[in-house]
C-alpha cells in the first residue's frame, strides 16, 4: 500500500479513536443518556472496508457502529448531537448511539438487535440491483451475529441472487462477556460455512488496516463486477467494556495478558509505526493531526451540547410516514 493511502487510512482511524476517547471522557458527565458501544481497538476494520466504498454504496451496522458511521463519511456533529439526544442529531435524538444514520453518504442505518441488519443490507443491495444500479452494500456485524439464523438466511439469498454484498464479521472473540467457547464449537469454520453457501470468503488480520483494505477491495470489486457476495472475517479486539466508557478487565472474564497482547497490536499505532518507518509521517505531522481532529471534535461537542432538545410535540411525530 502506498504511503499516501496508508496516511489517509491512518488519519481516519486516528479520528475514530479520538472521537471514541472523547465520548468515553464526556460520558461521565451523564449528559449522553444512551448506551454506547465503543469500537476502540477495532478501527482498522471500519476504515479499511469503507475506504473501498463510494458515498453511493450502502453500509448497515449494529450496536457498535460509531466507527462504521465515521469511516463511511457520516457527519460527526450530527452523530454527537444524536448521542446527546438533541433534535440536531442524525436521527433527531430519537435513535441515540445505537441508531445512527447519514443518508448523504450511504450510511443507511444501524440497529442493535444482533444480526438483524444483515438481511437489511442484503435487501439494500437487492433493491438497488432491482433498480438497475450496482451499488455495493456492506453489513458490519460481530462474530456473535453469526450465531443468529438470520445471518445464514442472508448468505443464502445473497449468494442465490449474486448480490453485491460484503459481509464484514468483526471477530473480537467476545459477545459481551461470553467467550467463543460457550457459543461456538471449537471446529467452527466460518470460511467453510460461507463457501457452503456459495459465498466467497476470506479471513484476515483486522488490526492491520492494509490487510483489511486489500481484502475489502477485492470483495468490493467482486461485487461491482457481478461476482456476488463475499464474507470477510476480520479478527480484532475490543479494548473497553462491552457497553459504556470504561475498561473492565478487572471483571475477570478475560485476562490482562490477553488484553495487553491485543493492545500491543493497536491498529492505529501499527499504521503510525509503518508510516514512520517509511518516513511518511513525523512527530510534527502527528501532532498536527491530533490538533486538527481535536478541534473538529471540540466543535462537534459544542454543537451537540448547545443544540436544543426535540420539542415535546416531536414525541408523536414520525410514527407513520406521510
Amino acid at each position: 500500500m502506498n504511503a499516501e493511502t496508508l496516511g489517509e487510512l491512518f488519519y481516519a482511524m486516528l479520528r475514530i479513536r479520538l472521537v471514541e476517547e472523547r465520548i468515553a471522557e464526556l460520558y461521565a458527565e451523564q449528559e449522553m443518556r444512551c448506551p454506547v458501544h465503543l469500537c476502540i481497538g477495532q478501527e482498522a476494520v471500519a476504515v479499511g472496508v469503507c475506504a473501498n466504498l463510494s458515498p453511493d454504496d450502502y453500509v448497515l451496522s449494529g450496536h457498535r457502529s460509531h466507527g462504521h458511521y465515521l469511516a463511511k463519511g457520516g457527519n460527526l456533529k450530527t452523530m454527537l448531537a444524536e448521542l446527546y439526544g438533541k433534535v440536531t442529531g442524525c436521527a433527531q435524538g430519537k435513535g441515540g448511539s445505537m441508531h445512527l444514520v447519514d443518508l448523504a453518504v450511504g450510511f443507511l442505518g444501524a440497529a442493535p438487535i444482533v444480526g438483524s441488519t444483515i438481511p437489511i443490507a442484503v435487501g439494500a443491495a437487492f433493491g438497488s440491483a432491482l433498480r438497475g444500479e450496482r451499488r455495493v452494500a456492506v453489513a458490519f456485524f460481530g462474530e456473535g451475529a453469526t450465531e443468529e439464523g438470520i445471518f445464514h438466511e442472508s448468505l443464502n439469498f445473497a449468494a442465490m441472487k449474486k448480490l453485491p454484498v460484503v459481509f464484514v464479521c468483526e471477530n473480537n472473540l467476545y459477545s459481551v462477556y461470553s467467550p467463543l467457547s460457550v457459543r461456538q464449537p471449537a471446529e467452527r469454520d466460518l470460511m467453510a460455512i460461507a463457501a457452503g453457501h456459495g459465498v466467497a470468503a476470506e479471513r484476515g488480520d483486522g488490526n492491520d488496516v492494509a490487510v483489511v483494505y486489500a481484502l475489502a477491495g477485492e470483495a468490493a470489486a467482486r461485487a461491482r463486477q457481478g461476482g456476488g457476495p463475499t464474507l470477510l472475517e476480520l479478527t480484532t479486539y475490543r479494548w473497553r467494556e462491552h457497553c459504556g466508557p470504561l475498561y473492565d478487565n478487572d471483571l475477570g472474564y478475560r485476562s490482562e495478558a490477553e488484553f495487553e497482547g491485543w493492545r500491543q497490536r493497536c491498529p492505529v499505532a501499527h499504521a503510525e509505526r509503518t508510516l514512520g518507518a517509511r518516513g511518511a509521517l513525523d512527530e510534527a505531522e502527528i501532532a498536527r493531526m491530533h490538533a486538527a481532529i481535536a478541534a473538529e471534535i471540540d466543535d462537534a461537542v459544542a454543537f451537540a451540547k448547545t443544540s436544543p432538545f426535540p420539542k415535546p410535540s416531536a414525541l408523536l411525530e414520525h410514527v407513520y410516514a406521510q
Partner: protein
Amino acid sequence: MTRELGFAQAINEALDLCLANDPAVYVVGLGVPDPKGIFGTTLGLQQKYGSDRVMDMPTSEGGMTGVAIGSALVGMRPIMTHQRVDFALLAIEQIVNQAAKWHYMFGGKMRVPLVIRMIVGRGWGQGPQHSQSLQAWFAHVPGLKVVMPATPYDAKGLLIASVEDDSPVIFIEHRWLHNIVGHVPEGLYRVPIGEARVVREGRDLTIVAMSYMTLEALRAAELLRADGVEAEIVDVRTVRPLDEALILASVRKTGRAVALDTSWKTAGFAAEIVARIAEEVFADLKAPPRRAALPECPTPTTPALANRYYPRAADIAAAARELLGVAPDGALAVPATGLPLDVPDPSFTGPF
C-alpha cells in the same frame, strides 16, 4: 351492470394494477409464482411481469423480511406473502423491531413501504399451527398499519391503498373469504386505510366485526331480524388505525354493542373495541358490551372440536339476544344448512 369478482381475483387484480402502475412494486413469497398462485391471488403475474418482480423465495421468513425492508429503504415497494399468519412468526422480530420502527427511530429519515399479506387458515383440520389470527399483536404496535378486508371490493381497494402507503402494512386475509364474490370496479381505486364502514343499518344494537366475521355478523343479523331485532353492523376494515368515530357513533345510536373477533377473546382485538366503547360512550350504553371470539384454547384439528371452536352466526345472535333480553325464535336458533361446518362452502373439498 355491476362487475362481479371473487375475493382472490380482486387481490390478484390489485397486485396486477400495482405492478403495472409503479416499477418499484414487486411481489415476493413462498409459492407466489407457483401453479396454484397463493389460492389464486398471484396467478399469471410472473408470466406478465417476469421473475424479478414476481418471485418465489427460500423458506427464510425472517431473513426475507429483512431483505424486503432493505429493498424498501432504497426505494422499492415490496409486497410479501405468507400462506399462513403462523409462518410469519419467524419474521416477527423484523416486522416489529425493524419495519415498524425505522421511520420513527431515525427521526423520519427512513421509510419502509412494505406490505405483508398474511392468510388466516381455517377449516379442514388446519389445526393449532395453521389457523392463528394475530391482528391484536400487530394492532398493538405503533408504526404498523393493519388491514382486514371482508369484501372483494375492500380487498382490492385496501390492497392498493396499502401498497401506496409509505408505512408498513399488515394485510390480513381470511382463507374463507377467497371464494366469495362481490362487486369490484375495474381500474385503480383506493379504500382509505383507517375508515370503517356500516355494512348494515339497524337501531337495536351494534355488531363490530372484521374480515370473515363480518359475513357471520350479516348472517346473525338475518337471524335476529326474525326476532324483530335490527342489528347495525360495522366492519372495521382497518384495525390500526381504528375508525373509532364511526364505531362510537353507531353505539351511541344503538346503545348496545357486541364486538366480534377471528381470534381468542383474552387480549384480542375485540377487547380494544369494548374498551373504547366503555371509555367513550359509557353514558349511552343501555347494556354492558359483549365479545364473541374464540374460546381459550389452541385450534383443535379434529372437525368434531373445530366445529365447536369457531363462533358462528347463531352464537352471535345468541349473544345479541342475551344483551337485549329477547327470547330466540326456536325455528331459527340453529340454522340447518346441512353443510359440514369445517368448510366455507361445498366447493371446498380439502386439504387446504
